[in-house]
């Protein structure tokens, strides 16, 4: 490995970043593909059915079959759509989730490399900036379709995502009051040592609000109003077919994965486990890989919960959604900020 040491620092940085980006991207796409499979299996189990079981053992090759189907179907562009936006929207849906995972610390270190693509000191603000861009894909899809139901879906999603973004942003402020930094690496460092140092136990209210806002931001049941089938015939994606439709699906699951990763980082201790010294940055490659495994396991667990909820809960009515966001979560989040600040001030005294 001497040739790596001979490279300039910039070249080394570029090389390792490229490797990390490729790895994270492949893992994310793999998880997205199999999240669909898990979704179908879980829904089948809950509804006492078999779910996909024809392609491969346990239907494990179903994602591949689905991908082939999506690509081979006719890609139909209706005559009345706005073409440019119709083509752009499915791509824009994917971008925010891909950008969010860039700052998630998915492990401590392998050798000398930190296991995070970009270690920003404004980490969480970056995330919220990117998450707030997530609404464009759906709004533009609704607008591009140029027909009633997709448009209503787009308008609904604008209102919903803006409302819950505020609640989400405010719910995490107490965390940064406690940690004293916006850097996600330091948030994880704060949660080491004892399982009760995890912020889910220190800030249960913030956790609850963040959890609900996460469902709303990723358009999952009970907050899937932008695409509620019974009211909008599918919402913003009605006019789409073939791989463009599949991209909306992948975008939804990628957003879910990114949100689960964020949840794990902020509230569930990230890559740490308070046993066997797993909460210290790894000294060996083995421990480093194990910590990446811990992170993935926690993230997949959260994602499984999100899928589970979808098949157990009814959808909110639109007025209930707005009422919950503006009149319950935002005041609660504000109260939580004040309470945390007062307690911290009292402790400092």
């Amino acid at each position, binding site marked *: 490995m001497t040739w790596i040491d001979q490279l300039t620092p910039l070249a080394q940085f570029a090389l390792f970043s490229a490797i990390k980006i490729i790895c994270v991207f492949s893992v994310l796409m793999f998880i997205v593909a199999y999240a669909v499979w898990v979704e179908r299996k879980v829904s089948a189990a809950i509804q006492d059915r078999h779910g996909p079981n024809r392609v491969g053992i346990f239907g494990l090759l179903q994602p591949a079959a689905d991908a082939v189907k999506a690509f081979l179907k006719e890609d139909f562009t209706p005559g009345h759509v706005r073409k440019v936006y119709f083509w752009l929207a499915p791509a824009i849906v994917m971008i925010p989730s891909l950008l969010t995972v860039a700052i998630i610390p998915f492990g401590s270190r392998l050798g000398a490399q930190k296991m995070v693509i970009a270690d920003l000191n404004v980490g969480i603000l970056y995330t919220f*900036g990117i998450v707030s861009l997530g609404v464009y894909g759906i709004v533009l899809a609704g607008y591009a379709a140029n027909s009633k139901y997709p448009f209503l879906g787009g308008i609904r999603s604008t209102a919903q995502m*803006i409302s819950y973004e505020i609640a989400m942003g405010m719910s995490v402020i107490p965390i940064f009051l406690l940690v004293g930094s*916006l850097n996600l690496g330091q948030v994880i460092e704060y949660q080491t040592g004892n399982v009760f140092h995890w912020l889910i136990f220190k800030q249960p209210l913030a956790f609850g609000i963040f959890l609900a806002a996460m469902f709303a931001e990723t358009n999952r049941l009970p907050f899937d109003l932008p695409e509620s089938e019974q009211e909008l015939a599918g919402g913003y994606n009605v006019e789409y077919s073939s791989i463009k439709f599949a991209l909306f699906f992948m975008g939804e699951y990628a957003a879910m994965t990114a949100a689960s990763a964020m949840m794990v980082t902020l509230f569930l201790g990230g890559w740490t486990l308070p046993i066997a010294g797993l909460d210290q940055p790894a000294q060996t490659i083995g421990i480093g890989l194990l910590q990446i495994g811990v992170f993935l396991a926690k993230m997949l667990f959260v994602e499984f919960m999100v899928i589970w909820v979808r098949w157990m809960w009814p959808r909110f009515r639109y007025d209930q959604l707005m009422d919950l966001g503006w009149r319950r979560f935002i005041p609660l989040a504000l109260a939580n900020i004040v309470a945390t600040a007062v307690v911290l001030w009292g402790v400092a005294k």
Partner: protein
Amino acid sequence: MAQLPDILFYVFAFLTLACGFLVVLNPFSTNPVTSAMFLVLTIGSLAGLFVLLHAFFLAAVQILVYAGAVMVLFLFVIMLLDLPAEERRKVKKAGLVLGLISVGAILTIMLQSLLQSSFSSEAAPTLEGSTIPLGRLLFTQYLLPFEIISVLLLVAMVGVILLSKKDLK
């Protein structure tokens, strides 16, 4: 040889100017939604310029507030407007003249101040965009302007609530 930040500066500066131009004068479309989307791109490129100045906080807030919230509301309002009427609207002569005068005035002021300022060859002081010093400054040295802006926003909010009340008593 040009360094990477220099190249990126030119890329982002070009993007900012080009997208900004397309916001107001797009030869291909008069659709307000298109203008709004180019404004989003302009804001995004501006954030890129902030990053190059190491003002990460400013860049993140720029995206979060302007691209993520303000522009989404713009889109929301545009979509509820009567779009065909807006697309047919032609540029009026009076508006053109007034616009050119105001742009010319601003340009003159800018050029004058640029000519008067002296450029030293020293490196510009690094704008440290770290959050803690910024917050400290806001609550010590710039406390009064900060609070005045907060009151301004509060007034705007109260005004909106008052306007949206259907039956004023």
